[in-house]
């Protein structure tokens, strides 16, 4: 092909091209007539709100789903893959948003599965497998023993394993669907280094993300999608965050509501020398109406702090006071009675009952209040739930439909509403904006701010520092289970937080 190309300034042949690709799921037109090209050696960001069709496009281009109509060309030839294994053979790999890994298998086995080069034909040599896999793990920034069962690792480490798996494919085209949704900042840096190396090798990378800062740092071109259609493709240097967000939502959005600092109030949660297997002598006070951001890297103990406060991880030391009295964590029910609530990180696994209705999910934690002698009072239950869902700006067609039918952002709002209905005085939110779209994030910031105005003390975790800084009064930074410092958000910058989070101490 190269021999026939005119010499000089020209576009290289696309590594992957879609023409007129459409896909329907039931009553929803997920993609309609999409034309799109991915060039070798480029990082091409796909942006759009949830439901815009980014993931559908990625899944079709990686052979997981088949288009209803339209054509996909890989290196100039039309392809019709009947599964992702065929796409892999043609050099196309994908990192899925819902990680398709197996907790009961080892890291090495997870990486080998579905990999034509690593999957043994008859007998497996686990030593050889480990040797083959170790450098990939190193490259992805997760230097664990390849024989570790995946179930022993945390969510963010799963994501790194998924990245290592795609690296091991030596693919020429890689789709990354929200690859950083569970990653902390340092892991994101390592991923970006990996992406730059791949790019230099001529690998084409499609990068699906909600995080504007990442997209603008790593991508060469940006394609914006809305309602299953292409809105625009342009070079990253020629556009701005605001312009992309406007194209995504079709309306201007504020990046985050900076909450005004409030005068010191009374402490609702006092923590002294809290220690568990993973936390070392944490001490802080949370005032009523205060929003405390919790920052930290992988395994820094961010989620562990929430688990410790509820008693899901046994304390090895420390004293807690809640409101006026001493508080000894004894589990979720006891915490609920003490007006302390935890919204878990993984909403599908730990938060929601996907096949139960929006209404039932909203009231399940506070159901006793809407019952008498064990009998439900349906009218009261419905009224309370609908009222709260409206306050949290949850969008749904029908409160009696399964919550699994909602978009990620609206699922997250249902999960928040479920806990708000228990009227907590202290609320721990574990990464509530993970993997949801810009509009829904904005609604969650507003909800947090309003709860604080109502006097709730809030601890919230986020892997995105800008939003954490913009929407908190103070930032608590954890590093390897220890508290490195608490910064006033007015003084906090991404740099100062990162210094603490990486264990470098406060800026000079």
């Amino acid at each position, binding site marked *: 092909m190269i021999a026939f190309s005119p010499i000089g300034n020209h576009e290289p042949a696309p590594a992957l091209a879609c023409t007129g690709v459409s896909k329907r*799921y*039931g009553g929803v037109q997920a993609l309609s007539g999409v034309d799109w090209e991915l060039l070798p050696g480029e990082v091409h960001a796909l942006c759009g709100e949830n439901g815009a069709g980014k993931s559908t496009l990625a899944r079709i281009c990686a052979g997981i789903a088949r288009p209803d109509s339209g054509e996909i060309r890989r290196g100039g030839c039309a392809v019709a893959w009947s599964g992702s294994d065929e796409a892999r053979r043609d050099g196309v790999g994908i990192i899925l948003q*819902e990680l398709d890994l197996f907790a009961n298998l080892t890291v090495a086995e997870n990486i080998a599965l579905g990999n034509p080069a690593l999957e043994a034909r008859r007998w497996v040599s686990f030593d050889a497998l480990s040797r083959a896999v170790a450098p990939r793990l190193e490259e992805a920034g997760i230097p664990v023993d390849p024989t570790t069962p995946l179930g022993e690792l945390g969510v963010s480490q799963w994501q790194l394993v998924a990245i290592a798996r795609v690296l091991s494919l030596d693919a020429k085209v890689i789709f990354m669907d929200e690859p950083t949704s569970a990653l902390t900042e340092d892991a994101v840096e390592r991923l970006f280094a990996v992406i730059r190396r791949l790019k230099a090798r001529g690998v084409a990378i499609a990068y699906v993300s909600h995080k504007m800062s990442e997209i603008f740092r790593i991508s060469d071109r940006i394609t914006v999608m809305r309602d299953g259609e292409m809105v625009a493709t342009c070079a990253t240097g020629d556009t701005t965050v605001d312009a992309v967000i406007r194209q995504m939502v079709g309306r201007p959005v504020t990046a985050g509501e900076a909450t005004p600092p409030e005068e010191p109030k009374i402490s609702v949660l006092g923590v002294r020398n809290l220690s568990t297997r993973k936390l070392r002598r944490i001490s802080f006070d949370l005032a009523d109406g205060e929003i405390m951001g919790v920052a930290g890297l992988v395994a820094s103990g961010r989620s562990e702090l929430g688990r410790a406060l509820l008693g899901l991880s046994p304390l090895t030391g420390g004293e807690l006071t809640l409101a006026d009295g001493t508080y000894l964590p004894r*589990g*979720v*029910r006891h*915490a*609920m009675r003490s007006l302390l609530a*935890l919204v*878990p990180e993984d909403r599908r*696994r*730990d*938060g*929601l*009952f*996907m*096949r*139960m209705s929006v209404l*039932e999910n909203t009231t*399940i*934690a506070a*159901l*006793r209040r809407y*019952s008498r002698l*064990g*009998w*439900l009072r*349906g009218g009261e239950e419905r009224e309370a739930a*609908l009222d709260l869902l409206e306050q949290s700006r949850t969008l749904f*067609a*029908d*409160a*009696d439909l*399964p919550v*699994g*039918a909602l978009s990620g952002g609206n699922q997250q709002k249902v999960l928040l509403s*479920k806990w708000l209905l228990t009227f907590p005085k202290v609320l721990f939110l574990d990464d509530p904006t993970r993997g949801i779209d810009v509009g829904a994030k904005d609604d969650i910031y507003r909800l947090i701010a309003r709860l604080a105005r109502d006097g709730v003390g809030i601890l919230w975790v986020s892997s995105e520092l800008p939003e954490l800084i913009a929407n908190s009064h103070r930032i608590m930074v954890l590093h390897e289970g220890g508290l490195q410092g608490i910064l006033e958000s007015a003084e906090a910058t991404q740099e100062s937080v990162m210094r603490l989070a990486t264990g470098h101490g406060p800026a000079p």
Partner: protein
Amino acid sequence: MSTAAGRGLRGAHQFTRPFIGLILVVALGVFLSPRGAGGGIIFLSGGNLTDILLQQGEIGIMALAMTLVVIAGGIDLSVGSVLAFSASLVGLLLVKWEPRLPTGAQIAAAVAAVLLLGAVIGAVNGIIITRLRLQPFVMTLAAMIGVRGLTRWMTGNTNIDFGFDAAASARFSDLFSQKPLILAVWAVLAVAAHLVLSRTVFGRYLRAIGENEKAAAFTGLPIRMARTATYVACGAAAALAGLVHAARSHQGNPNDGVAYELDVIAAVVIGGTALSGGQGTILGTVTGTLILGVLTNVLRLRMVDSNVELMIKAVIIIVAVWVQRRDRPSINS
């Protein structure tokens, strides 16, 4: 937005769906039924229809409680053995036991003791499953084997034949084999189970626990208590079915009720309850029980070989579950 009309419509749909299979099977029954001397359809005669209900009474009562167990994410394989245990024990208490009590009091004491012990077996199942974290299949399989052994050992592996005339066992047998009583008990329990599932906090908890146990734990739901309660209900229901069984067969046979658990589970599954937990209705289970009953009845009226009957049942189970899978709304991931 949600409207009352929309809810009503979907509610109506949910209400009718389990019946469609039943209507089909009844239509098949009418079609296949032999004609009587006067040209009447034997299948539709009043006596035949109530016989179907009566024959399914034992399975039906157990299937109600099994529905609760399965919705909460469990299974109970021990019901057939508990039924035999209950039938044999009531026999021992009425035939071998000679207390200085009026006959009525002796029957009441025996019935109470049997129901209580059935509940205790269920409680043991539930407590071991939830405290020692044994899989429900494994624990209740062990209970199925162990209770069968207990029953045979306690009876010396012989039938306890009931007496006649004024004997306590005879009066018990007369009372508990009455058609109206059995049907009334079944109906009352079905309504009660339906209300528990649809109108109580406990019922909502069962569905939540069966759907996602991790989320239930993070929500602080009383998982162990709720699941144990379903096994207690199942043990008591199996004991009650055993009382009916003993009365109807006029004996306590320690070897009866073998493989009944499979009929019970089949009725639950045909009724649309997911074995994976979280979803199911009592209405569906009652319908599933009746479908199996009508089918058996029609095939027997036609004098079909009972082994062929089993094969047809197998096909019905597969078709019923497949049809329900197809129109279950898919969840967007």
